[in-house]
Every structure is written in C-alpha cells, then in structure tokens.
C-alpha cells in the first residue's frame, strides 16, 4: 500500500517513499505533512497536522490531549469546597468564570442563597478575569503576525489587574477565591481602590494608545480581513462559542440571556459584528474589554454592604444542576451531580474552546499556510480548556 485515501484526499505514506537513486530530499514530495506543534512558537501544547500543497493548505486535523489531566475525574475525589482548586485550573487565563459556574451549580443543588455582596464581588472578579484574559488574547493575535509590541503593551495593563487580584486573594492568577457559598475573602476598600486604578489605567492610557496603532492598522486589516469567514448560519452549525460566535452576528451572551451573579442588575451591551472574519473576532474581543470595564465601574458603584460568605454544608443532598456561565472564551456549561456525599459525584464541563477547535478543519480548507496561525489565534482558544 503506497497511499491511503481519507476524507476524499489521497495521502502518500512517508515510509514507503524512499525512492532508490539520488536522494532529492523533500523536493519530490507533492503533499507535505507539517506537524504544526507540539513544539511550535504559535501553537501551544497541541498539534495541528497540516497537509500543504506548496503554500496552500489541503487538510487540517487537530491532535489534542497534550495537557490532559482528566479534571472531571479528579473533582470526584475532592470535597465540595476544595474542588475549586481543580475547577479553576480548567484554564488559568480566566479562572474566576469557571469557579463561579461551579459554585452556582453547587449552590443550586444545596439550596444555598448567596448574599448580595458575594454576587457583586463575583461579578467584579469575573469581569476582571475576562479583561485579563482578553488582553492576552489581543496580544497573541497581533503576536502571530510578527509584532510583539501589542502583547507587551497589553501585559502592562494586565499586571495592574493581577496586582488587584493579589491584593484581594494573595495570589496573582491561582486565586482560589470563589467558593460555594460566596467568596473566600472579605473585599476591602484597598482592593476596590486598586481595581478602580487599574480600570482608570486601562481606559485612559491603554485604550487610546492601543486603538491608535493596532486596531486601525492598515497592514493588520490587510492580513486579517476576509480570512476565515464564517457566516451566521454556518457559525451556529459549527457550534462556535463566545467571541467567534458573536463576531458572526449571533447575539448570544449568557450574561444577558440567563443572568447570573449580579449581571441582571447591571447595564451593558452584547458586542456583535456581522462580518465573521478574523478581524471581526479581534474587534469583538477589543470591544468586550470596554464593556467589561463599564460593568466593573457599575458594580463598584452599587456595591452593597453585608456578609460576603454563607455557610456551605459539608454534605449536599442528592440532585443535579446544569449551569452556564459566560466565560472569557464563551459559554462554559457545568453539569454537576451530587449523590449526597461530601464531594461531587460527576462534573461535566462543556468547554467552549473544544467546540471552537473542531471548527478548524472546516474553516481551514483551501487557505494559505500563512493564514493558519491567524485563524488559529482568532478563534481564541485555551489549551487547558480543550483537553481538561
């Protein structure tokens, strides 16, 4: 057998191709199979098998599982409280969203009412996490086009928020600060002050500087406009989630549609774009930063007094709950089941990046090799979230 037929294409097996005579190296291969990752500057811990014909991509097949930890199983060995340590590590970029979703699901099963202050605190932290995550997303998107300035500028703003989180919880990113029954630490005035300062920096210094150079950039537009276009119907059919879905014109935001925490009481817009290309996804991420900053300002203004945490029972009655939260990368679903024990019986994490990833083979048909990293970065995925 010299070749295998798969999905309509014929691939020549590499081992069989040692032709006798002079070795011409790679010149004689028609289809090159590139292993785009695991060690690749733009891939992260995953592999895209890219078959290219010259500069054109014929077929793409993702190979994932390189950061597999089986979090869903690990959670079953934990108690209700300390399972957050594993849940938040679904992805470190925005760990508050996952912790909030898990906590709300656990509270729904246990029938615990959360004080209002905890709700507001969760909102602030979630939006902070979204900002932190989106900043890295913006930076890495411009980063795959060979300019590292955007990432560095974004990191300056990111550090301000991480400082605020550190002041609140004691760690920069592994905060472990939202638990079933409220939040873990008393929100102090110092934290609020620091958060306000961070948002001031974001709005007064970062946005103007960034907008001027990297949002309205002609070369950037040249590279990203019209790349990886997904129309509205196609986006729903492919099951895209989060900013890529909204960039295709679908108004879907869990914060607006099924309000949790304090989102029901705050005023914000759902950012959508109609174009559905890589540039639109990039713009959606940038606009969402502004919305998040707005939400945090409102939440700080309406910050209520009272308790920040209620008692959560050690043993939770049998039951189940399905909770969605709008995480930085999209809608994160938690299907949590209790059997009356001291810990979760089963937790299913419906990850948005996983859904986005499997749109890649469809989106990358017949593009240029140089567009592979652009589309990959514009889908805004997190590897910890894909593999779990």
């Amino acid at each position: 057998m010299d070749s295998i037929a798969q999905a309509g294409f014929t691939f020549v097996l590499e081992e069989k191709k040692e032709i006798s005579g002079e070795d011409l190296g790679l010149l004689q291969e028609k289809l090159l199979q590139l292993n785009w990752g695991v060690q690749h500057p733009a891939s992260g811990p995953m592999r895209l098998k890219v078959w290219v014909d010259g500069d054109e991509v014929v077929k793409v097949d993702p190979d994932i599982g390189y950061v597999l930890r089986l979090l869903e199983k690990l959670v079953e060995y934990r108690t209700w409280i300390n399972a957050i340590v594993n849940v938040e590590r679904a992805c470190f970029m925005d760990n508050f969203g996952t912790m909030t979703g898990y906590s709300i699901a656990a509270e729904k099963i246990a029938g615990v009412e959360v004080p209002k202050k905890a709700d507001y605190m969760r909102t602030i932290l979630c939006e902070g996490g979204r900002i932190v995550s989106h900043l890295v997303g913006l930076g890495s998107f411009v980063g795959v086009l060979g300019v590292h300035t955007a990432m560095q500028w974004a990191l300056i703003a990111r550090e301000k928020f991480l400082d605020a989180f550190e002041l609140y919880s004691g760690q920069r990113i592994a905060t472990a600060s939202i638990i079933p029954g409220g939040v873990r630490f008393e929100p102090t005035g110092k934290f609020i002050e620091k958060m306000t300062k961070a948002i001031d920096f974001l709005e007064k210094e970062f946005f103007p500087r960034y907008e001027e150079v990297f949002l309205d950039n002609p070369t950037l537009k040249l590279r990203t406009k019209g790349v990886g276009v997904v129309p509205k119907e196609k986006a729903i059919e492919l099951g895209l989630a989060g900013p890529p879905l909204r960039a295709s014109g679908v108004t879907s935001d869990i914060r607006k549609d099924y309000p949790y925490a304090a989102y029901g009481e705050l005023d914000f817009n759902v950012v959508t774009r109609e174009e559905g290309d890589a540039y639109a996804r990039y713009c959606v991420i940038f606009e969402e930063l502004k919305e998040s900053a707005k939400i945090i300002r409102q939440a700080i203004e309406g910050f209520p007094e009272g308790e920040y945490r209620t008692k959560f029972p050690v043993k939770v009655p049998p039951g189940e709950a399905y909770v969605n939260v709008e995480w930085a990368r999209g809608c994160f679903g938690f299907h949590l089941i209790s059997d009356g024990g001291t810990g979760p019986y089963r937790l299913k994490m419906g990850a948005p990046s996983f859904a986005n990833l499997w749109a890649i083979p469809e989106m990358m048909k017949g593009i240029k090799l140089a567009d592979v990293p652009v589309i990959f970065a514009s889908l805004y995925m997190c590897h910890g979230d894909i593999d779990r």
Partner: protein
Amino acid sequence: MLEEIKEKVQSEFGFQSEPYDTNMLLIHGNREKIKDLLEFLKRSGFNYPHTVSVVDWTPKGKDFEVNYIIENIQEKKFVIVRVTLPENDLTVPSVCDIFPSLQPHEREAWEMFGVEFVGNPRLEVMLLPEWAEGTFPLRKSYDFKKHRKEKK
C-alpha cells in the same frame, strides 16, 4: 415555548418531560426514537447543541445516562434530552448527521465512557495517549487511587 414542546413531545413521541430549571426542559427519551426527537427539536428551533454529558450511575445500581444539551439560540431556551442505557449494551445511534458539531463531543464520550455512537464516522482516540485506549477513565469502575496502589 417550553410548554408547547412538552406537549408535543408527549403527544408525538410519548416521552415524559419535566421543567428542570428556569428556562430548561428535561426530556426522558429512549434510544430508539432519539434521532427523530432531535430532528423534531432542530425543526422547532433548538439548533445550537452545547455538549453530550454522560453519567455513570453503576455504583448506585442504576444505568448509564446520556444527556444531550441543546439551546435555542433565538428564544434563549434550553432542552436536555436524557437517554438511559443499560451497562451491558452501551450503544446509541449517533446524531452527528443532524448536529454535525456534536461529532467531537460524541467522540469524547466514547473515549471516556465507552458509549458507542453507532454511525459516528470517527470513533478514534482523541484525548488519551494511545496506550490508554479502551480504559474508559471516566467510568466509576476506573479508580485512580486503585491504579496508583497497584503500580507501587
């Protein structure tokens, strides 16, 4: 909206359903009619599938559950279709011709639980390392602690 669906599911398929949470409906289906049910749901606007969640109830003396979680993205309603499968016959017809985006989710469920989705074109190892194929690590019978002790 959800009331209509409830009645129609009751009259057309004979499936019981109950409200699950606000905005959510839980339909107890069976595997014979699951494809028809999902097609009906897709026609009535539930076109954005979220995920496939399998629950292993064997230590409690019950069966496996397969939950299809589908959203109506225009009207903002959820539906959870639940199919119960006995442990010795874990097969269910694949729905990836109705919802193509559920294909990797089914693949993951097959990999982790061993639930065979008949008709899925790609039931291959995805997340696990190759040597771990067929271990079905998310089943309750696969105990991390036991394995650790065995190794030591």
